């Protein structure tokens, strides 16, 4: 994850954090929500839209007043993080955001193999792709972005697992697949990615154990069996593992 220059860093993954060359800057809630919203959007937004989104149940006058208060309470290094015009608000050029880097990483992982955008990252990508976006934030605008990020990172983790597996890095590939499984225990595709890694590593017993764990979970939680596709993935392994 790159951290360019000595500017201001906003972290949204795993929780909100604002840093400028030192310990985290503590902000009041309204100011944190303002910076988080601008960081999620990553472009200039009309003040009226910002106020209406962040304070949706307030009157227009009250919402505008709350926005002015949130801006005024950006003290010290935090004030330099916002670029403000009479009409718009955005983040200043010296701000970097961890989500922007993580999104770029995920898109590179999902780019078609051989394209200029595709990369072969290592296990260092796993932590960035494992973190939730603004956990415990319940604003509509935050929930939608969190879900977008969840989908993107899950696909990227599965792509990373496949990429590492192809390069023979089975331990790292399993770690990437497990990160996806932890995020979506009931979803089949991360579990299939993990089983594929075990098979590629020549470990049919562990592949079957993972299949059994998933089958038990599905039966316990949902009362359904794994799909035919997943059963087919392990179908040939039963004979191999017979004593």
């Amino acid at each position, binding site marked *: 994850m790159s951290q360019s220059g000595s500017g201001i860093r906003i972290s949204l993954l795993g929780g909100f954090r604002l840093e400028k060359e030192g310990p985290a800057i503590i902000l009041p809630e309204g100011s944190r929500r303002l910076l988080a919203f601008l960081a999620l959007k990553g472009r200039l937004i009309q003040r009226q839209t910002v106020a209406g989104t962040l304070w949706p149940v307030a009157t227009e006058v009250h919402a505008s007043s709350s926005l002015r208060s949130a801006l005024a309470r950006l003290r010290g290094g935090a004030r330099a993080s916002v670029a403000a015009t009479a009409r718009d608000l955005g983040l200043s050029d010296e701000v970097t955001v961890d989500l922007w880097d993580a999104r770029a990483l995920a898109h590179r992982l999902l780019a078609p193999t051989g394209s200029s955008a595709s990369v072969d990252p290592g296990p260092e990508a796993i932590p960035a792709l494992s973190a939730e976006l603004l956990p415990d934030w*319940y604003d509509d605008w935050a929930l939608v972005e969190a879900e977008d990020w969840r989908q993107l990172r899950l696909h990227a983790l599965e792509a990373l697992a496949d990429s590492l597996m192809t390069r023979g890095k089975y331990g790292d590939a399993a770690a990437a697949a497990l990160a996806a499984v932890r995020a979506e225990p*009931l979803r089949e595709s991360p579990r299939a990615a993990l089983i594929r890694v075990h098979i590629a590593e020549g470990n049919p017993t562990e592949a079957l154990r993972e299949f059994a764990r998933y089958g038990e979970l599905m039966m316990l*939680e949902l009362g359904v069996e*794994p799909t035919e596709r997943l059963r087919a993935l392990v179908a040939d392994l039963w004979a191999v593992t017979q004593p």
Partner: protein
Amino acid sequence: MLDTAGTALLTIRVWCEEGSEHPLRAEIKVADDVASGFRSTLTFVNAEAVVAAVRDFLDSVTCPAAPLILP
């Protein structure tokens, strides 16, 4: 009963598991009060169960009616 001093929240995330006998997956998360976080997460495989869960959630929200003012 939910604490209506704050805001209760229910989210439904839906996806399909192609090839499953019951392909629908609907994950429901419930927060009694968004200030205290999600209270429960449940996943269902049929629409009727999802509707029932939503109805249970709404039934558990107490919204006191305004007092009747007689002329």
